[in-house]
């Protein structure tokens, strides 16, 4: 198999959770509300690659990882897993997936680039067991993910029992030993019969990794595997994961909130915001030359172990928005420091900034913004003019009324009436100013975007 073939390809994946609105509303209302945890993301992982999803908590990165293993059920989209066909498990899976089943339409086998892949989303429950032998997950918290009442041997042997993979006790023990060895818990007999509480945090995470390795997977979904560990042992676990990649040609989907870890560990990064990937590319490019304002802000706020670093931090206001109520247009626009008119109206397309590095932001397409703004400027100018005309007439009328009221002073209710009319005039004034400012802003955007056009960087008159 060539080095740069995809092992996993995700296209337009959606994972929505239905919101409960109360029994009657759920039954009667036609419009269901969803929390769109993952909302149309696409990416691929190459064989032997470490792809990293980063983002704040609640951006959908863990849901994506779980969706790949169908630990949560994806709403739509495709998750295509294409491993070496010589592998007996994949062979069996391709055979099963190619067959018709009452539980799915058509087949789950997908042709891609001359190879056959399996659409995980279309597999039945019994077929999923085979897929999970090759895609495994490492969980975040080694203090919670290990059953305290089971010995380490039992924890690691469990997947073998579930998948009916061990021929006899001897074979089972040999496999567990091998997994422990691979995970760096040597000698295995020293750890095998202990309980989780008898080993340290770093060793617990190694047990978690051994539990994933025992089925000899080819893709590992690692969900924040080091964030619960002490700093002095984080490096050990990262090194172990790198070693395993070298030895076993493992691919990783590495999920983390820590950009500095993503920077040193991964080959490619996808930055997620509110269920979408906003920027993706090779790690070096994304970190050293971020294009999306969200990525730029995230990088400045990562604490740096350097007391002399004097860098302006871009601290975004507010907390992360709510996935049940996604803002229209670019979903980052309410917090974006560079917000433009177009941003709140239409979703920006993924624009390539460098080879293999794209971001979804209008700042990368100044020509598009200029075109849209120039096209729509007359429309908004007309609206502003209309508002102005109408409001000036209205204000004139109200002012007359005001004078009439003022001349007839004395009564108590006229004081209130005067106040109300004054307020109305003020309201109309601000409305006018707003409309004007809107047009001015659009004009200003054209000017700033023109300076960003590649041709503008050359001096035009000298």
């Amino acid at each position, binding site marked *: 198999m060539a080095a740069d073939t995809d092992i996993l390809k995700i296209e337009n994946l959606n994972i929505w959770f239905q919101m409960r609105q109360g029994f009657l509303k759920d039954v009667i209302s036609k419009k269901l509300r969803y929390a769109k945890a993952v909302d149309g993301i696409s990416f691929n992982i190459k064989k032997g690659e470490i792809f990293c999803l980063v983002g704040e908590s609640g951006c959908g990165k863990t849901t994506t990882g779980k969706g790949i293993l169908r630990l949560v059920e994806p709403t739509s989209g495709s998750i295509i897993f294409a491993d070496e066909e010589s592998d007996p498990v994949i062979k069996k899976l391709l055979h099963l997936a190619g067959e018709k089943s009452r539980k799915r339409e058509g087949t789950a086998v997908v042709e891609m680039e001359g190879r056959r892949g399996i659409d995980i989303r279309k597999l039945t429950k019994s077929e999923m067991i085979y897929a999970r032998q090759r895609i495994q997950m490492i969980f975040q918290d080694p203090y919670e993910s290990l059953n305290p009442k089971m010995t380490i041997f039992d924890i690691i042997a469990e997947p073998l029992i579930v998948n009916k993979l061990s021929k006899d006790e001897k074979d089972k023990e040999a496999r567990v030993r091998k997994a422990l060895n691979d995970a760096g818990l040597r000698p295995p007999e020293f750890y095998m019969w202990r309980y989780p509480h008898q080993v340290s945090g770093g060793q617990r995470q190694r047990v978690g990794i051994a539990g994933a390795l025992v089925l000899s997977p080819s893709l590992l979904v690692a969900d924040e595997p080091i964030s619960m560990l002490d700093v002095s042992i984080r490096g050990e676990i990262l090194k172990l994961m*790198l070693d395993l990649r070298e030895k076993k040609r493992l691919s990783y989907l590495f999920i983390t909130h820590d*950009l500095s870890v993503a920077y040193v560990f991964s080959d490619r990064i996808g930055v997620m915001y509110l269920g979408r990937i906003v920027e993706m590319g090779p790690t070096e490019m994304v970190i050293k030359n971020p294009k999306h304002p969200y990525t730029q802000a995230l990088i400045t706020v990562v604490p740096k172990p350097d007391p002399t670093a004097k860098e302006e931090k871009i601290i975004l206001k507010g907390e992360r928005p709510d996935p049940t109520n996604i803002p229209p247009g670019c979903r980052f626009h309410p917090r974006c420091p560079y917000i433009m008119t177009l941003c709140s109206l239409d979703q920006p397309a993924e624009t390539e900034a460098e080879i293999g590095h794209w971001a979804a932001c209008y700042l990368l397409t100044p020509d598009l913004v200029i075109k849209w703004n120039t096209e729509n400027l007359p429309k908004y100018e007309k609206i502003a003019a209309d508002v102005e005309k109408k409001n000036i007439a209205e204000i004139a009328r109200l002012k007359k009324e005001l004078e009439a009221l003022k001349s007839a002073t004395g009564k108590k209710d006229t004081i209130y009436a005067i106040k109300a009319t004054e307020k109305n005039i003020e309201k109309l004034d601000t409305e006018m100013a707003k409309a004007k400012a809107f047009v001015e802003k659009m004009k200003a955007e054209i000017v700033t975007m023109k300076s960003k056009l590649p041709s503008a960087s050359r001096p035009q008159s000298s």
Partner: protein
Amino acid sequence: MAMLEVTDLRTYFTTMEGTVQAVDGVSFTVEEGEAMGLAGESGCGKTTAALSIMRLLPSNGYIKTGKIIFNGKNIVTLNAPKLRKTRWKEMSIIFQGAMNALNPVKRVGDQITEPIMLHENVSEAAAIKRTKELFELVGISPDRINEYPHEFSGGMRQRVMIAMALACWPKLIIADEPTTALDVMIQAQILRLLKNLQKELSLGFIMISHDLSVLAETCEKLCIMYAGKIVENGTSIHVFKNPRHPYTRGLVAAFPNIKGVKFMPEPIPGNPPNLIHPPKGCRFYERCKYKIDSCNETEPPLFEIEPGHFVACHLVQKGVI
């Protein structure tokens, strides 16, 4: 004279297996308006040191020896009523988990007015007024004082905790991992808030964290703790630019810098020693890659390597590393 002066503090815990020497001979000072960071791995005694200063130790913990001189008073020997007057009024603490540190069945405003009314002879109306001011100071809308903790997000709850710590305008604030459970963006917001407040009110500030990079950005002075002892002590520039103790070197190398060169965080192999039977010599001996046999015999004292920069290592003292 320094505002807080801790000398040779030893805090032990009685457990079934024996006496845990969690903090064993720690000394440091905090001046007024100075921010000091206390760093180390989990279990190194940094939280215990903080709790000793507040005298908030659990029932099986006790201060064996040592002095904690705060504003001329020795905290260790204060009796309970005097201690109550010192806490909150003169020094206060921000706890780690804002989720658990707030009472879920009481309105947040009430939880702040309560200490104000207890410590200062003011009416409820005055206390509520001050609570509103505090809320404004930490960046929460004062209208929210009647809400319950569950109505706040994690970052907002941490702001409430900060407001609560400031309630009686103390001169010293101890923050125990104030941003550990928060997102990076919220962490940056809270750190900026803490730093601004510390400067504006010229507070003495002790920040405890396992995350050296957070301390690098907020503190002028750093103490690195390992297994109940301070192994290195100096300004943050000393510690980051010229780390001398092998443990500090390892710790600094364990933090990748997103703005710097790409390198894999270097692990420090091994585990901290058991503090029931701590080793006789250097406590880092087991994990140290420079160790020589004599390190295991005597305990290294803190040694001033350059003005204001102390290191506890035999090899550094001898000039070997």
